């Protein structure tokens, strides 16, 4: 009885959550010239026309590839860099580990919009402006604090004995990191990778500030071209393009959801 009640509740929650998403899908299917405000039912089947309008207006394909590069590259760099730092702070004999924690974590406390103007100037001076290196670099830096926080906290749950490291030489530390702590923290690292991949994927602010060329510009900046205040394209086209833009992230989450669920040992 309790189980049935819970199932009913879960389905209700799911439906409530899906309702807005459903609205997105319906309106992405609406023909652009029939659109007169949000619709609740499928009245036309113009999804592909809408998508092709979007692709014809902005170079979405190229932008998607750019963004994939930035998301995967920066999330990977950030997770590795964060794992190294977490290992050092939690396991290695570092003086004042808390101070180092705050120094790295501070990166996430600063309001992002603050960085725009000084960063732009720095990028213009160092010729990083409008380059893919520059984009990967800033996204990686933005991702490090969160990844560090997650991985560090995860490592502190490791059994105490594991942290009581004997004095090791360099190779010893590195082997210990690779063999024991890296595998141990894989759940946290995958989660951090996913979140940072997604955060980069959906970034608009740095995309429009630090890049301008179509071969560098990320996806959200390209989508914003459809959505600008002068653009007469209308919501169905933007929604259709937005759905296409969300496919990679949805697939990513779905494939990793299986990872989380399989790894769960809570189910008796």
């Amino acid at each position, binding site marked *: 009885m309790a*189980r049935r009640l819970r*199932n009913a*509740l*879960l*389905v209700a*929650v*799911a439906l409530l*959550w*899906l309702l*807005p998403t459903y609205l*997105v899908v319906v309106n992405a299917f609406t023909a652009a010239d029939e659109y007169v*405000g*949000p619709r609740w039912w499928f009245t036309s089947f113009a999804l592909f026309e809408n998508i092709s309008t979007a692709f014809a207006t902005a170079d979405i394909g190229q932008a998607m590839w750019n963004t994939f590069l930035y998301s995967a590259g920066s999330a990977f760099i950030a997770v590795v*860099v964060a794992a*190294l*730092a977490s290992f050092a702070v939690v*396991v*290695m*004999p*570092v*003086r004042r580990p*808390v101070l180092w924690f705050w120094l*790295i974590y501070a*990166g*996430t*406390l*600063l*309001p992002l*919009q*603050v960085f725009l103007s*000084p960063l732009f100037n720095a990028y213009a001076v160092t010729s990083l402006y409008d380059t893919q290196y520059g984009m990967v*670099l*800033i996204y990686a*830096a933005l991702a490090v604090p969160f990844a560090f926080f997650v991985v560090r*906290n*995860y490592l502190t*749950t490791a059994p105490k004995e594991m942290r009581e*490291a004997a*004095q*090791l030489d*360099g190779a010893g*530390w*590195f082997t210990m990191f690779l063999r024991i702590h890296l595998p141990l923290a894989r*759940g*946290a690292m995958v989660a951090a990778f996913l979140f940072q991949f997604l955060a980069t994927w959906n970034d608009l602010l740095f995309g429009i500030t630090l890049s301008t060329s179509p071969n560098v510009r990320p*996806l*959200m900046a390209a*989508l*914003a071209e459809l959505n600008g205040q002068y653009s007469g394209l209308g*919501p169905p086209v*933007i929604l259709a393009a937005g759905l296409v*833009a969300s496919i990679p992230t*949805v697939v990513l989450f779905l494939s990793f*959801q299986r990872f*989380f*669920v399989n790894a*769960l*040992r*809570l189910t*008796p």
Partner: protein
Amino acid sequence: MVAVTGRAAPWAARTWAALFIAPAVALVGALLVLPFLFTVYRSFFSDDGLSRSWVGLDNYATLVTDESFLRSLLNTGIWTVGTLLLPVLLGLVIAVATNSSGWGRFTRFAVVLPYALSGSVTAILWNFMLQTDGGVNEILGLLGLSSLEQPWLLEWPTNTFAMILATTWQATGANMILFLVGLQAIPTETIEAGRLDGAGGFRLLREVILPQLKPISIVVIGISLVGSLKTFDIVWLLTRGGPGTASETLALTMYRQTFTLSRYGYGAAVAVVLTVIVLAASWIYLRRQLRSDD
């Protein structure tokens, strides 16, 4: 913190530790902290982006008497409380509840899905929903609840609450995933031992699972705290802080001053105040947590 504390660690080990930390510190330091220090410097100037002059603490003095700054301080507070209550708590509940249920997978999918949608889609969607002629009012009408219909985004504080609900819809999935990662770390033996002790349902949850979730809860709450204090995107997309400046948060006030009004100095002062608040809140919350996980 580590076994070797109390006796000087060998020089080699410290060098290695420095090498392990260096990349993270370099990235964060050069690309995030340095620009911030420049912002602090800038907050002592009157600066229109093209020329600047020293004004000392004038920007900060103006701040404390600025009515719209105080309103946005209040809004930021509401956002923080709302975000800690709704997306965090719901994320936990859904993570635990979907665990051993056949429908769990479906619910998890539904809840995670919005998290993957992009900002432009979210903006259009919630405008659909919250407009005066929009979806929410239509549904209320169909349910015979016409008396509850209202212009969701046009009145304070309703607009802030409505936007917190929209954020809940989008952000709960992320918290849920983090809690799932935390659940994954609980050794099966611990659960089994709890069961053998006769714990079930809520008692198992309260006495066995929740304590084990503490490290990940710190992450979720810590991140949510920071995220909510810095709330920007959803408000910018839905109301631009309006009508007037009624729904502005500190991040929006900073953005408006800096970029809409081109008062880089004043905007920098708001940014510094915001950073101090975020830093203080995080420090107060994490100070004890960081110490206790030794």
